[in-house]
């Protein structure tokens, strides 16, 4: 039960420890550590200066005495240049990323947190920066920077800032409307304190990730510019070395190899480190779904098509894979029967598995879910183990569905009418014209005052109640034998709920449909249902005729639920303190 005070403490592994266990992160970090430490210790590792040329060593091969990696076209020691280039790379990365962080994060916090006017200003400024192709601007401004790569990287940092600005601003805009920020304001915290305490903690992760990528791209850009010959020739850098190696490609290919390897390894390590950081700080992110392959089933379907009820679910079990690889059961042993034209209410609290049962019947469980046992028979035909193609011929035609949240269940990019017509044509062999007529008639039937206008509206142009009517119209379009309604009124206002319940009741008797109504609201069950099944923690604890169960619940859990209902009897009777003290 959700009220139990013994919450299972979730294993709390700090992000850095998860990172330390990720071989990709460890390898990338080790490579970077080695490269930059050697760069820092360059004078100790090699006796040569980066620009010290030894004419006797021009194009010396690898392994020459005194030049372990050889020397270049001017007789400069390649190892020494490589190590000093690592220094240049480190400085470039730090300047570029540092400037980007300072500008981007500050502007993002300010632009996201304060009012619209400040945001318009920052937005405009950063759009301006983003309008110009970055590398080109660095080139155009070359006379201004005087060829100093540090000045160039400073400007590059400014050019990187808009990317960070957008990340931070969007996060802050999201956090700003979180209730915990409101609560902090009510508690009297000042803006600076709210930003520090509540906002920065949210922004931190994504900023660290972005910074890792920026370190890599700063180095790549600096190398590219040095390759072109921008800036002082005195500064050793991977790009300058690649350029000189490129010129000497036919004479001494190894000269090209070393700096390319170093540059490739460095930038690749930053990218891989960034990816590993993302996994550690934000989780691996949603996995792709396998669309159109049917539900995963780990049970041999029962043989034979028996006669029987319209819908007969026996011993249904559904599980989800847990992070440790085992399966976690969410529905354990569900058996229920819906006769033709009957309305069954499936009731339970959140997490009881009622929606999972409904999805399994429709064959639309999420791709990770596995049906681990039981059978679902519709008109005697086994549905467990059917592929998506076979199921999709039943769906929309024989079995239909009404969702809970009306708005998110309509595609925002298509007009309401077009979506309904598409559904009708998928389920029934009718022409586009016929489908349109049918949809217009349905819209009128579900109580929409101006069906033509609704037909031509986009989902964001209609109200929640109207959207739910549209979805009902879509569900009953093909006169299904079974309607599965998942909390169809929970997202609606009470007065709208009453009207939708009326509509469902009328349609049910008019079409003679059976309905499987999933809800947590006993009032809705009392209003609409013939039978009731009560679910708790993945299993049905009690089922029976609605009147019987309401009057005489047998299972203690049902009794507890019915007792928790706040009814007309529960009026507060004690008087407020102020009045009592007066009397």
């Amino acid at each position, binding site marked *: 039960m959700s*009220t139990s005070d013994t919450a299972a*403490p979730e294993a709390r592994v700090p992000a850095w420890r998860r990172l330390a266990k990720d071989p990709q992160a460890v390898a990338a970090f080790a490579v970077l550590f080695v490269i930059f430490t050697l760069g820092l210790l360059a004078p100790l590792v090699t006796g040569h200066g980066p620009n010290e040329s030894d004419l006797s060593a021009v194009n010396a091969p690898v392994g020459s005495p005194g030049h372990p990696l050889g020397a270049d076209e001017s007789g400069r020691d390649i190892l020494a240049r490589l190590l000093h280039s690592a220094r240049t790379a480190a400085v470039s990365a730090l300047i570029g990323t540092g400037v980007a962080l300072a500008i981007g994060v500050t502007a993002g916090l300010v632009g996201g947190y304060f009012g619209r006017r400040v945001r318009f200003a920052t937005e405009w400024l950063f759009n301006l920066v983003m309008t110009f192709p970055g590398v080109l601007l660095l080139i155009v401004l070359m006379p201004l920077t005087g060829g100093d790569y540090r000045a160039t990287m400073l400007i590059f940092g400014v050019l990187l800032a808009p990317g960070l600005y957008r990340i931070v601003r969007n996060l802050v805009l999201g956090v700003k409307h979180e209730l915990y920020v409101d609560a*902090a304001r009510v508690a*009297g915290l000042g803006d600076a304190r709210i930003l520090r305490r509540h906002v920065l903690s949210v922004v931190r992760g994504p900023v660290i990730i972005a910074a890792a990528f920026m370190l890599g791209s700063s180095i790549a850009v600096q190398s590219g510019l040095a390759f072109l010959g921008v800036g002082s020739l005195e500064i050793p850098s991977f790009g300058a070395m690649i350029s000189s190696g490129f010129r000497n490609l036919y004479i001494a290919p190894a000269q090209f190899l070393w700096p390319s390897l170093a540059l490739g390894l460095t930038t690749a390590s930053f990218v891989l480190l960034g990816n590993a950081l993302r996994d550690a700080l934000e989780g691996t992110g949603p996995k792709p779904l396998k669309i159109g392959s049917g539900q995963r089933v780990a049970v041999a379907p029962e043989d034979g098509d028996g006669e029987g009820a319209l819908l007969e679910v026996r011993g249904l079990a559904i599980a989800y894979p847990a992070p440790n690889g085992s399966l976690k059961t969410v529905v354990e042993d569900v058996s229920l029967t819906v006769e033709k034209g009957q309305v069954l209410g499936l009731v339970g609290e959140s997490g009881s598995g009622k929606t999972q049962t409904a999805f399994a019947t429709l064959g639309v469980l999420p791709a990770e879910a596995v049906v681990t046992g039981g059978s679902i028979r519709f008109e005697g035909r086994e549905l467990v183990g059917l592929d998506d193609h076979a199921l999709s011929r039943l769906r929309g035609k024989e079995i239909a569905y009404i969702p809970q949240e009306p708005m998110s269940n309509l595609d925002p990019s298509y007009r309401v009418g077009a979506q309904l017509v598409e559904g009708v044509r998928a389920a029934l062999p009718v022409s586009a014209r016929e489908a349109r007529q049918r949809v217009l008639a349905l819209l009128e039937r579900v109580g929409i005052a101006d069906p033509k206008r609704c037909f031509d509206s986009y989902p964001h142009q209609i109200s929640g109640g*109207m959207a739910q009517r549209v979805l009902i119209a879509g569900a009953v379009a093909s006169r299904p034998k079974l309607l599965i309604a998942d909390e169809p009124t929970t997202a609606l*206002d*009470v007065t709208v709920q009453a009207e939708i319940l009326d509509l469902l009741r009328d349609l049910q008797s008019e079409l003679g449909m059976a309905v499987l109504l999933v809800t947590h609201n006993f*009032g809705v069950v009392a209003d609409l249902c013939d039978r009731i099944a009560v679910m708790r923690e993945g299993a049905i604890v009690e089922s029976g005729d609605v009147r019987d169960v309401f009057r005489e619940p047998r299972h203690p859990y049902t009794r507890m639920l019915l007792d928790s209902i706040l009814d007309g009897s529960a009026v*507060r009777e004690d008087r*407020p303190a102020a009045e009592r003290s007066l009397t």
Partner: protein
Amino acid sequence: MSLLEVADLRVAFPGRGFRAAPVEVLHGVSLDVAEGETLGLVGESGSGKTTIGRAVLGLVAPASGSIRFDGRETTGLTRRARRGLAKDVQVVFQDPYTSLNPSLAVGDILSEPLIVQGAKTTEARSRVRSLLDQVGLPAGAAERLPREFSGGQRQRIAIARALATDPRLIVCDEPVSALDLSTQALVLDLLVDIQERTGVAYLFVSHDLAVIRRISHRVTVLYRGDLVETGPAAEVTSSPRHAYTRRLLLASPVADPEEQARRREARRRLTESSLEERVI
């Protein structure tokens, strides 16, 4: 004199898009809450009930009207002056999942309002222990993160935070509507219990008449930014005078098939007689 007096409150939000005209969501609402009293605010979406709560908390600036707490005007206060009020006016929000910062330990969440009021760390720590005890959570909860708790437990944490500074008024914005049925009753009982012990007043916002009836001494009904009626809870929720309240009452289904059938009939008659257009 009442603890909270709201008079002719109007609130408008900026319209969508650049230079669009502001949209008024409250058209002059007046109400008051006495010391130790619960005033229930009930209405449907778009009624402005949440906006009233947010205006009282200073999260929304009124276009006009006055909000007086303990005789003192609170609209147009500076941030600094508002901070003085923070000790006396607190809040419990609807969604226990987003009203607690997921990256702060419960102890830090609870001591936040205390530290703003200038409490020392050791004082705050012992206060946190007693707060957790008041809402029925173990003392060890202080070191844990919000995500380690269930919805009902999180709402208890939010209530503890609201109680931290010994406030005289708590604005409760749909505090139980995100909770399961069995948890709802427990949290409402806790709120009543706290009121009995501390004499705090509640401005209790909800869309659910049954919840409102259980917790309120008096009830105010709102419809599209206007006050419909105010009165003692028992009266308003069982024999309402206004047609809208009647409709609201009859629309919420009861968990009794026979009684619900009767209500349905009564509602049908009401809609037919009052030729009002549908709400949708």
